[in-house]
């Protein structure tokens, strides 16, 4: 039943279980699905969403530096998870700011937790030094008290409170990929999900994307492409600019909610969960190998950070870093071939 209410006067707190996660999109999906009776870990969401990826795009710039990506594009994980688990999600987009807030209030009054796309910079609960202009940040609004919203932001350890004006600004942040008030809620979750089928489909897609990409900047080829380019950075760009390029990769790999090592550790956790579901314990061995690959990526990040900060020894140079990347590429290629071979066809 829809309850009618006066604007701004609702007092509602939906019993919503908040869990912190490494990444906002996977965390929101995990929390929302769990709320609707489909408990699923962040790692499983990442895996079923075929999140694992690598791409190095020198022609796309982020803060004037080449873009590297360790996961598929934003929104892609949610789309895949909902499709593969047959979860119905209703998306809404607004031009009118007031209407966007009113409809949000309506959903809350209906006891529906709502996912919102936001510009993280405008969220008042983000400490100033952690704010940056990122317009694809996901969170769940699960209540309202006075003019403050109760929010489950998966990258925070506990639920937070955000003023109406901040949330409104965040929902209509300007700039690259503006959220345009987008919000979503789960309409229905099936009584039973075919998890083995969803897992198989997702794993096959990751293997295909990473091993058979038709262009050189994507997948295992992309890692090798980055290695080749990186070797020449000091002479081509000069030490200072080369350091900036390296710093950008480290941030994308270790800092932007990746769960560590560019999502490789999360994917290892996914493979570990897969073993008992598919009743095939070879996935455990692959999980361990994926963790080792994550450690190689970490070794690269460490050497790169030492180069950025001029703390590197003589052997910790660009040629050595490129070699580590080639080793990562080789290990990932072997692992993904093995993974594809043991994953049942759907």
């Amino acid at each position: 039943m829809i309850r009618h209410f006066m604007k701004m006067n609702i007092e509602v707190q939906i019993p919503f279980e908040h869990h912190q996660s490494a990444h906002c999109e996977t965390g929101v999906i995990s929390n929302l699905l769990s709320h609707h009776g489909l408990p699923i870990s962040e790692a499983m969401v990442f895996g079923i969403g075929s999140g694992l990826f690598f791409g190095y795009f020198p022609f796309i710039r982020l803060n004037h530096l080449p873009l590297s990506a360790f996961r598929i594009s934003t929104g892609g994980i949610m789309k895949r998870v909902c499709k593969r688990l047959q979860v119905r999600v209703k998306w809404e987009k607004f031009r009118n700011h007031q209407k966007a807030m009113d409809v949000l209030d309506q959903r809350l009054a209906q006891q529906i937790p709502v996912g919102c796309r936001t510009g993280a910079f405008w969220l008042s609960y983000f400490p100033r030094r952690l704010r940056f202009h990122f317009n694809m940040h996901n969170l769940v609004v699960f209540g309202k008290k006075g003019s403050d919203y109760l929010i489950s932001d998966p990258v925070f350890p506990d639920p937070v409170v955000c003023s109406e004006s901040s949330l409104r600004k965040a929902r209509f942040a300007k700039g690259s990929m503006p959220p345009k008030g987008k919000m979503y809620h789960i309409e229905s979750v099936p009584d039973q999900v075919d998890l083995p089928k969803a897992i198989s489909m997702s794993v096959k897609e990751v293997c295909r994307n990473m091993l058979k990409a038709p262009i050189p900047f994507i997948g295992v080829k992309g890692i090798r492409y980055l290695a080749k380019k990186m070797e020449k950075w000091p002479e081509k760009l000069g030490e200072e600019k080369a350091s900036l390029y390296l710093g950008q990769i480290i941030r994308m790999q270790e800092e932007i909610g990746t769960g560590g090592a560019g999502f490789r550790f999360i994917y290892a956790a996914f493979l570990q969960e897969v073993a008992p579901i598919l009743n095939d314990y070879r996935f455990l061995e692959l999980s361990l190998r994926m963790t080792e690959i994550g450690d190689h990526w970490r070794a690269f990040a460490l050497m790169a950070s030492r180069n950025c900060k001029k703390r590197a020894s003589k052997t910790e140079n660009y040629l050595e870093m490129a070699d580590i990347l080639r080793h990562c590429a080789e290990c990932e290629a072997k692992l993904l071939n093995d993974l594809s071979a043991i994953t049942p066809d759907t």
Partner: protein
Amino acid sequence: MLNTELKEKIKKIIISELNLFDIDPLDIGDDDPLFGDKFGLDSIDAVELVFQVKHHFGVEIKDMNEGRPALQSVNTLTAYITKRLST
């Protein structure tokens, strides 16, 4: 190891491994923010600190989100290491 000894060790590691040559352990307050203007450290230095925590104490911080609260100050890092070592 006592908490005070652990804090001293952490301070010495930060100074030597992050090349803070002009800083004395006494200059680092237990609650001082490690990252930011005071010591000039940033997220790139966090990668090194995570490695050093593993190297010296055997405590692995796989996820930077999990590590971020721990890396706030010497006190938070001490508490994190102590907790991890006791579990």
